[in-house]
């Protein structure tokens, strides 16, 4: 069971004052939350690296959290930013195994639905979302993705480029 938003917000406010115990608890909670957040939206063996990258960003950007605001939408913005950055860098991997869903395990499904990565994908045209999923998330080559989705290889590349560009502009979009 992952802590709720109010608990994490309190832990974060204490962490900003230098409270190590609160920070340790917060980081552990955030690690678990991020594992679920990224599930199904990144190749499984890359999740730990991306979670660490995100925790490092959280650590470096502690000051950007306003204790008067909810915590999870802030964490989700950090996580989305790192995820889009990761998609831009990612290259082909063989494994395509995906974890089970995030929303179903989350204690606050209404919040998770609004801040999820699926939500971002829902704003993309289907062709762009499909091209990104196949190549950047499932790890297919351009040629394999072209066969799988029926788009030409050049169109797959264009859709990935345009889709990633659009995702980068929607980090904070609900």
């Amino acid at each position, binding site marked *: 069971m992952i802590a709720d938003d109010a608990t994490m917000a309190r832990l974060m406010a204490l962490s*900003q004052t230098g409270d190590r115990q609160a920070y340790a608890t917060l980081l552990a909670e955030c690690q678990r939350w991020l594992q679920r957040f990224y599930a199904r939206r990144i190749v499984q063996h890359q999740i730990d690296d991306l979670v660490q990258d995100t925790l490092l960003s959280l*650590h470096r*950007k502690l000051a*950007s959290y306003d204790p008067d605001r909810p915590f999870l939408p802030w964490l989700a*913005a950090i996580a989305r930013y790192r995820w889009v950055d990761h998609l831009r860098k990612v290259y082909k991997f063989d494994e395509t195994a995906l974890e089970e869903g995030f929303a179903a395990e989350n204690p606050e499904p209404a919040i998770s639905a609004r801040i999820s990565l699926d939500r971002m994908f829902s704003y993309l045209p289907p062709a762009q979302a499909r091209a990104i999923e196949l190549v950047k998330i499932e790890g297919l080559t351009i040629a394999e993705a072209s066969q799988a989705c029926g788009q030409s290889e050049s169109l797959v590349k264009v859709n990935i480029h345009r889709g990633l560009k659009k995702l980068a502009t929607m980090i*904070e979009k609900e």
Partner: protein
Amino acid sequence: MIFMRTDTHEFIDDLLDDLRPTRPLMLQRSLLIAAGSAALAIGVMALFIGIRPALTAGILDLLFLLASGLFLMLGIAASFTVIDMSRPQVGNTHIGWMWAVAMTALLPLTAIVLGFSQAGNAFLQSQPVQGLNCLTNGSMLGLIVGGALTMWLRRGAPTSPGQAGLLTGIAAGSLGIFAYSLHCPFGDIYHIGLWHSMTVAVSAIAGRVIVPALIRW
């Protein structure tokens, strides 16, 4: 601060060892810094260039008040958005500044329309020599505001560095030319619409090009 890629428990221990008390980027403090940098720009202008005598004598004209007010409001709107962008949150929307841009764009549009409709030489009427002074000095004064906002963004976590850079430039140009307009003696629509607006446009382009590399994280 270098963190070795290791298992997550060791990684978290490294982060814990590096924890230091941090002052959150609170809205009130950031607004004070933005307002302070704008006041500093006005102070620098008053000290080194001087407020024009008519203004200190209390002689005001309609267009000066309207145009300066528009640039000031645009600067405030853009600064507020930049500050908000330093504190990311899913659900944030940053569109209010666009209305301020649209309203301020009425100044150059009016100058262009009048220039065409009166078949006069609007460019010459805009006092181009003094206009270049406005462009240069307004941009230089804007650096004070732009620098403060960029420093603020570097502490924050803007998720759209390109847009944050553009808005930093708009805020810097608007508040810079607002400060310089307290000196500029030319108050006709051609001069203000072309040269004062151009200061904002040039600063916006500079901000869009330069700032993102400084604030990316």
